[in-house]
């Protein structure tokens, strides 16, 4: 490789930001000051190239310090890591939190996604535009920020020597004041000021999102609100690390057996049996094995993983250690979405504290097992939660999914056998080991065992994360959340990739098999209640816009199909007479089928699910519906 650079110089600040991640440059060949010595030999750059996985952290470092990535900064990062500038540019432009153009240090991300939309985000958007001008460099509409219990919400990220973040929400506590249109008045702007509150306030504690906090009988949320999330002693006093001790007693195969017998399946959306995944990875002869904890949580309406990481961070550290032990990994990567600054802070603190007490490191708990966790931050890309895209993202490539086979347990991160699990999946493991697989499996139903977290948002009295045993009905869950406000129109189960459920179907048991039976899905545990006041066509347009924005662009059915889906929905929602909708509905179906059948990954394959269910089950755009809902 013969790299050509642009000879744009980084500023001293940019250089310092990069060096803080990569260390000082070892020679003139990697961007340091050129010395006599450097001229006597040519460095092949192999060592630098082996650190390609530090590309994303280095880009973050610049973006965090300056607010954007200049040509000089990108050039310097490329020299340091021997990455071709064109490739680094391709990576940097993949992520929506990075900018390659100058912009203010502070950027406000205003959520305009589903849960916030159901609680007045459109009015907030108008209010922000009134206060700050049209969207652009200083503020921008954002996909779901995972703050749905505080909807409508926003996140400000401020670059600097110490980067800052501020969270806003609810930005219009009084929904009427937020200009939430009344029934029938689809798009009427509210009279008077929209009442957007942009005062910075301290963020409420994590348990604020858990209305059940402190109640007896909770398993996964047991400690949230009861322990100081910073305190390892608190965690241990509340039963922490008993499960890891138990794991060492059982041995790796024993742990895998327990997880198999527990019936635990993945909580990240695909519902794959965790024990089978672990068994397959553990048995692979090639080493090293890697563990990746998927905390990219970007499915609109999902915020459960955030609440665990913010409220009980050591639980995830312990669970990852157990998973690593069971599957023969000595290194785990925790990949947290870039929009979760507090979760990143809490998790890095917990990892450091565990390391300093010998609970991570060369000799975990004095048992001769070496395991450590590296935290990686995403940078604004839903697709990086896909189980193979996350590998590319960690390795410093564009977050494009890989084609399967080979599967992650065969060839995953750095081409090695890899276990990828969701945060919630992993935190189920300590309770399994402590209670025993049998007792764990006694909770829930035969097909869906254990407790489950649901992210309840939208038109309910008390939005938040709820823990219920599998088998509780949707009605039970909405009841727990204080019931719906207004007249219920529909519930979106499973997020943007999920399906709508009618008000008449509230007795569906919230299990994998129960939701499947009515043609829906649990997905990542999203339960978004929509009342009659919500403009359903607007929700569908937003779902379509989400997939269009988040498609990686690799395969044609998804890259172009999501655009055509959005265009057709746009026409349908504008059309005065539903009579001529038939052509566009047929088009949606045909494109949807091709996206489902021919896309590479789950994003394209599910991009039409929610729209299809709204058309088929809710009758949106059907002539009987009258004007579009």
């Amino acid at each position, binding site marked *: 490789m013969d790299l050509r650079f*642009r000879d744009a110089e980084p500023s001293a600040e940019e250089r310092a930001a990069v060096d803080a991640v990569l260390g000082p440059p070892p020679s003139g060949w990697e961007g340091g000051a050129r010395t006599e010595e450097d001229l006597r030999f040519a460095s092949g750059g192999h060592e630098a190239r082996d650190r390609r996985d530090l590309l994303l952290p280095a880009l973050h470092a610049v973006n965090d310090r300056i607010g954007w990535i200049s040509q000089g900064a*990108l050039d310097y990062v490329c020299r340091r890591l021997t990455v071709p500038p064109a490739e680094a540019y391709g990576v940097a432009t*993949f992520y*929506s939190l990075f900018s*390659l153009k100058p912009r203010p240090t502070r950027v406000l991300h205003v959520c305009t996604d589903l849960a916030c939309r159901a609680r007045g985000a459109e009015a907030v958007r108008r209010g922000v535009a009134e206060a700050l001008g049209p969207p652009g460099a200083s503020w921008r509409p954002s996909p779901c920020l995972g703050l749905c219990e505080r909807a409508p919400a926003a996140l400000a990220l401020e670059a600097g020597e110490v980067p800052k973040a501020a969270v806003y929400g609810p930005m219009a506590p009084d929904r009427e004041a937020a200009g939430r249109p009344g029934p029938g008045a689809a798009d009427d702007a509210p009279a008077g000021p929209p009442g957007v509150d942009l005062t910075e306030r301290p963020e409420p504690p994590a348990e604020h999102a858990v209305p059940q906090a402190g109640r007896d009988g909770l398993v996964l949320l047991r400690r949230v609100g009861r322990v100081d999330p910073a305190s390892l002693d608190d965690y241990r006093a509340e039963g922490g690390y008993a499960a890891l001790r138990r794991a060492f007693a059982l041995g790796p195969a024993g742990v895998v057996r327990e997880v198999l017998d527990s019936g635990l399946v993945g909580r990240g959306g695909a519902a794959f049996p965790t024990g089978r995944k672990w068994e397959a990875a553990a048995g692979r002869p090639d080493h090293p094995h890697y563990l990746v904890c998927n905390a990219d949580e970007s499915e609109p309406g999902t915020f459960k993983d955030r609440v665990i990481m913010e409220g009980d961070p050591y639980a995830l550290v312990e669970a990852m250690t157990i998973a690593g032990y069971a599957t023969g990994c000595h290194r785990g990567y925790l990949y947290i979405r870039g929009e979760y600054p507090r979760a990143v802070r809490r998790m890095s603190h917990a990892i450091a504290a565990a390391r300093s007490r010998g609970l991570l490191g060369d000799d975990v708990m004095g048992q001769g097992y070496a395991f450590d966790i590296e935290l990686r931050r995403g940078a604004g890309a839903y697709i990086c939660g896909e189980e193979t895209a996350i590998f590319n993202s960690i390795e410093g490539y564009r977050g494009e999914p890989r084609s399967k086979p080979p599967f992650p347990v065969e060839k995953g991160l750095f081409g090695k056998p890899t276990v990828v699990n969701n945060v919630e999946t992993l935190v189920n493991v300590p309770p399994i080991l402590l209670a025993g697989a049998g007792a764990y499996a006694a909770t829930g139903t035969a097909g869906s065992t254990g407790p489950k977290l649901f992210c309840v948002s939208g038109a309910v009295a008390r939005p938040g994360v709820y823990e219920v045993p599998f088998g509780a009905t949707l009605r039970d869950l909405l009841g727990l959340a204080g019931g719906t406000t207004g007249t219920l129109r529909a519930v979106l189960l499973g997020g943007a990739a999920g399906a709508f459920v009618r008000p008449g179907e509230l007795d569906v048991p919230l299990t994998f098999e129960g939701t499947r039976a009515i043609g829906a899905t649990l997905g990542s545990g999203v339960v978004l209640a929509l009342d009659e006041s919500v403009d359903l066509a607007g929700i569908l347009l937003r779902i379509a816009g989400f997939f269009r924005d988040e498609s*990686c*662009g690799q395969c044609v059915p998804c890259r*172009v199909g999501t655009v055509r889906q959005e*265009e057709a929905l746009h026409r349908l929602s504008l059309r005065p007479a539903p009579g001529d909708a038939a052509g566009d509905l047929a088009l949606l179906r045909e494109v949807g089928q091709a996206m489902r059948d*021919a896309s590479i990954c789950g994003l394209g394959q599910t991009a039409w699910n929610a729209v299809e269910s709204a058309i088929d089950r809710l009758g949106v755009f059907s002539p009987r519906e009258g004007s579009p809902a």
Partner: protein
Amino acid sequence: MSAVPLQPPRRLIEMTVDGQEVRVPEGATVLDACAAAGKDIPTLCHGDTLTPKNACRVCVVEVEGSRTLAPACSRRAEPGMVVGTATERARHSRKVVLELLASSTDLSTTPRAAEWIGEYGARPDRFGPEAATVAQPPKVDNDLYVRDYAKCILCYKCVDACGEQWQNTFAIAVAGRGFDAVISTEHDAPLTDSACVYCGNCVEVCPTGALSFKSEFDMRAAGEWDEPRQTQTTTICSYCGVGCNLTLHVQDNRIVKVSSPHDNPVTRGNLCIKGRFGYQHVQNVGPSDG
């Protein structure tokens, strides 16, 4: 030493394609199996000299037991596989993929595109006149080749040929995301400011004509490009001792483009700037010719 390297004998895999028994060597793709069964499957991002990214999805087939369709170009053939190339589902996806491509991209110079659009009954115009496209002006920033990204289907072949699969130059990569993704140099700089070494190996693998010799681009613009009138002559490059085969495309006794046979064991279709673009001396024979 033999010019064609001998390979160890490979086991044969038996499978069925459209009900027909076929045998292919282990390691073959479903596409190879389809070819063995005499099926003509459309492909775009697959190339005979590259490992495909299976991004275009025009080659999808139905594999029994698989939830989604499989890209024939990349899925490995397995013993006992039951493949359907002409099932309703497979034909439907191919048709829609062609519609999506043709409605967003200029396929006028993509070989066989019009034929497939007819064969599958694809109607790219059904998305209406407002349908978003990737239309943009061609990038003419050097004397040797042109990048007309209004014709680009993002097959990744040029990126792979420039980068790790052949040239190791990495002058271009995919930038941006989703429908806005493009093939680009860093910061969209002109090629003359990039790492490009003008080997033209990207032009060689481009399936759409988005990348073309400047000579071809200019002749097309002038309405003079006439492939049936061209002859192709394969010869050996005279610049150095490697012995690359060059195929000279000649129209009206002038070289209009140079390629290299993909099955040539020396080049596998790849050349350097001299072999690819250094042919002017052949036709600049005298002052009167200038």
